[in-house]
């Protein structure tokens, strides 16, 4: 007889099996009756939790110099210790971010007075490609708009 599949959240035998398709990738989660009843079966956050729990256990290799938080603390809590932890664990968290987030780079607002340089550079690269495509497609209206955007981005980055 085959071994029963273990619940992704606890140690019980799983009876509920879920699949989720995100950006063309299939992810599976197995739940026991109790975890499924707790709302897990209808909450997409269950996938994130299961992913974090399923990762192999490393020895504590990273410690945040600012607050003393370690990578093992993160595995236990699923939360970081302080803003500087993002620098310490940034690379290690890259894989998790790819799973739970849309893209691993910020494209939103910044606090007043902060120029988001990396974000502007990315947009500048994209706008240049878009302008080349617009020119090739003889969409000169779009090309002119993009030219203005590129000039504005270059000005912002130069300041």
């Amino acid at each position, binding site marked *: 007889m085959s071994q029963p599949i273990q619940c992704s959240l606890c140690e019980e035998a799983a009876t509920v099996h879920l699949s989720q398709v995100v950006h063309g990738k299939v992810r599976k989660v197995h739940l026991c009756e109790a975890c499924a009843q707790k709302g897990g079966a209808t909450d997409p956050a269950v996938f994130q939790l299961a992913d974090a729990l399923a990762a192999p256990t490393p020895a504590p290799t990273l410690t945040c110099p600012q607050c003393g938080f370690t990578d093992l603390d993160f595995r236990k809590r699923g939360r970081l210790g302080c803003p500087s932890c993002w620098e310490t664990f940034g690379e290690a968290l890259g894989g998790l971010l790819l799973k739970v987030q849309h893209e691993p780079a910020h494209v*939103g607002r910044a*606090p007043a007075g902060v120029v988001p340089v990396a974000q502007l550079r990315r947009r500048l690269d994209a706008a240049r490609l878009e302008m080349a495509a617009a020119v090739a497609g003889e969409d000169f209206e779009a090309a002119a708009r993009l030219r203005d955007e590129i000039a504005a981005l270059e000005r912002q980055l130069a300041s």
Partner: protein
Amino acid sequence: MSVEDILAAESELTHLLGGQQAVVLSTRIRLARNLEGLPFPGWAKAPHRKEISDRCVTVLEGLPKFRRGHVVRMGELGDRDRAVLVERHLVSKELAAGKLGAAVISRDQTCSVMVNEEDHLRIQVVKAGWHLRGTWHIAEQLDDALGGVLKLAFSDRLGYLTACPTNVGTGLRASAMVHLPGLCLAGHMDKVTRALNQDGLAVRGWLGEGTEAAGNVFQISNQQTLGLSEDAILRHLGGWIKHVVEQEWNARRKLAQEEGEKFVDRLARSLGVLRSARLLTSSEAMNMLSHLRLACDMGCLPEESRHLVDRLMIEGQPAHVQARAGQELDSDGRDRRRAAVVREALKDFPEVVPPSA
């Protein structure tokens, strides 16, 4: 200031200051923010948490938005008062569970900022009805005001830094509280939930994570916060809410047409029970009030009656019932008291009539 003042005040959701609507009960924006150089609340020691709380509360109290507002410190409140704040969605269950958290709440209760929840600051703005852009603009202004005074933790690459990787980037959670009796009665809710989940939206019950969808009320929100601009997140949610509202109306019209008298009978019976019951449990009240709200939307009851239904949904919750009674009540006592409040509120309520064409 006490929780009694919050209960007595005319608030956005209980008195629908922003106007009320069919299907969408309220729109909510939440922004997670942290101070640079200080540990997140879950890892911070008590002295740090106190420093965070003192700094943030002082700044918040000084903002025009919170003039003549309320400051509530969890450590100074009893269980019932904290539960009232949770039932009003002014603070989260997590904040209410700890002693070191605080919240600053605007006078009309549209804005509340939680301090020392999972993040140092959780800005929340809520409006009655569906007002995604308007709600967002208020949150944006509050964020700018805070960012002008406090140095917020921000990285060029990852955006606003948060304790949990599921909030990093924009720190934005946008949500709509929707009333979907049509889709529930038609048995389509599982299908809708699956479709929303697969496109990166979460569907939760009335009181958020891990709660049941009493009264056919669901909270729909974005999951991803990084790699999408605030505008893209709002457009994505907005598009889906519009679609869900359309589907809900289709389901309601179909039900009303196919069931005919049975449809009206169901709504009329709920009014009958609410007007006569001597004992009403919280979930029974929610489910029957859901029928009354549906009746108001469908023209079976006057539309002006809907605000009373919405208020009873909030004030019929256990901690609210006890706070109004001014005493702790056991389960039977609460059900008796709830029934009395609802009977009194509905005594001059009009009769349910067939839906308007």
